[in-house]
């Protein structure tokens, strides 16, 4: 497996919406490389014919009755909002100016 480079960390950070500082890129590249190097042992079983387990319980869809129940009021739901307007979450601009 290839080592994790500074550029790769920058790419991962973009995917994960983390605006990392320059000095963090170097710091994390070394650490992530160490961790990946250590945990890569799992690929020892990659060729084995073993079904994957994603969850400890054999889960199927769990449905509930479609009934009206008490829920949060708009005030409660918005109580933690960084910004709000007219009973809505107010967010920064999503589309560019030109669109």
């Amino acid at each position, binding site marked *: 497996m290839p080592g994790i480079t500074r550029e790769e960390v920058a790419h991962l950070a973009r995917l994960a919406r983390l605006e990392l500082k320059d000095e963090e890129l170097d710091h994390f590249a070394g650490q992530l490389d160490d961790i990946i190097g250590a945990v890569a042992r799992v690929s020892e079983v990659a060729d084995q014919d*073993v079904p994957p387990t994603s969850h400890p319980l054999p889960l199927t869809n769990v449905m509930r009755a479609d009934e009206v129940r008490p829920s949060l009021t708009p005030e409660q739901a918005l109580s933690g*909002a960084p910004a709000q307007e007219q009973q809505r979450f107010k967010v920064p601009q999503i589309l560019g100016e030109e669109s």
Partner: protein
Amino acid sequence: MTDTTAITRLTAAETAEKIASGALTAVEVTEAHLARIEAVDEKVHAFLHVDREGALAQARAVDAKRAAGEELGPLAGVPLALKDIFTTEGVPTTVGSKILEGWLPPYDATVTKRLKAAGIVILGKTNMDEFAMGSSTENSAYGPTGNPWDLTRIPGGSGGGSSAAIASFQAPLAIGTDTGGSIRQPAAVTGTVGVKPTYGGVSRYGMVAFSSSLDQGGPCARTVLDAALLHEAMAGHDPLDSTSVDAPVPPVVEAARAGSVAGMRVGVVKQFRGEGYQAGVVQRFDEAVAVLKELGAEVVEVDCPSFDLALSAYYLIAPSECSSNLARFDAMRYGLRVGDDGSHSAEDVTALSREAGFGDEVKRRIMLGTYALSSGYYDAYYGSAQKVRTLIKRDFESAFERVDVLVSPTTPTTAFPIGERADDPMAMYLADLCTIPANLAGNAAMSLPCGLAPEDGLPVGLQIIAPAMKDERLYQVGAAVEAAFVEKWGHHLIEEAPSL
């Protein structure tokens, strides 16, 4: 009884009994614990928030119920320290992170609701590694917690605030969450009892998600019976959590009161010793196994070869799930928002807020998970980790055909000094070596004290693992071992902790 120190040293069971009989009021008990917090928590830093008014109001309600002749629950009036990962309506819930600083949840977690309904008094919220990611509580954005046995050492993690609170007699009960050992490892290094119930045994509704297929809330206490009483109060099916098991709660209190291992088959996991295990930990563990034999258990060695890959699989699965779960922290609906000055897009604001709000370990795990799930690496990493998970389940299944419970040391070493592993993630991860397999398979597991390591005088934990939904076996075995040790030592191990 007016001696507040004596009140704080009672077990939860004793406290409840005294409140029920009228020997103590719930308000007296609560005030005694609030005074203890006032006196020692500046040194320990177990609590992130103390809810004095809320606690006293709940205590007064319990006393009023008793005065009115209403029946009280088995833990009514008993104080508890709640890990800051469970939402509490109108009371700060930070998960140890700056990203939720100042947030007041608009609802209670199911666990919080059940505690309140049981008349349990929530004293406050305890410190933890940010988003429960860590083994030392050093990853808290609000500073570390000290281990009451030696304040320069870690109290375990992620639930170090909860374990330190009970070990320093600031509360007789606490609640933790265990994704890879975050209840059991803190219990081991503080000389207390901690239980990870079977996956699905306790509702995750309102418990901030880290790794949803592994996370499980559970009880922390100073005795096995107290842990059982709290287990029963918090467990049970919850329609608000689709992974909650719809089955009766295992009879844990009954098992803790019975406490016998005669005729039981106990397996010693072969993989959990050798290189990296502290001599004093192995010595105390071997003595605990000898105690099990003396009590009439049949002890055999059990081989679980896939456990050697558990740590690696865990550090792919947990970060993968966390990278997805923590995507909800987008600075749009709640939590920290940075850079909303008209010059940044919503996407930029999300990235700036996450950069400012998350600490290093959280960022590491989010990126690790993003990497493991990315195309080209998915099969080799996440896919293989899921296969390892199957192999570990199979190892457990074949072990439990031969034995009723498995035992091992809870941790390879005793509490290490604060700062020692802070910038070496892999060294930190090794603290969870023995606890992780039970999370991957969904089994129930407990840690309880089995003595002090001769070389450093610090607590050592004995781990007991039971099959899923057989949680009562932990208590049956744990109570028997605890009673044997109390007889040998003349007291519970925690009595030897410094008074602070």
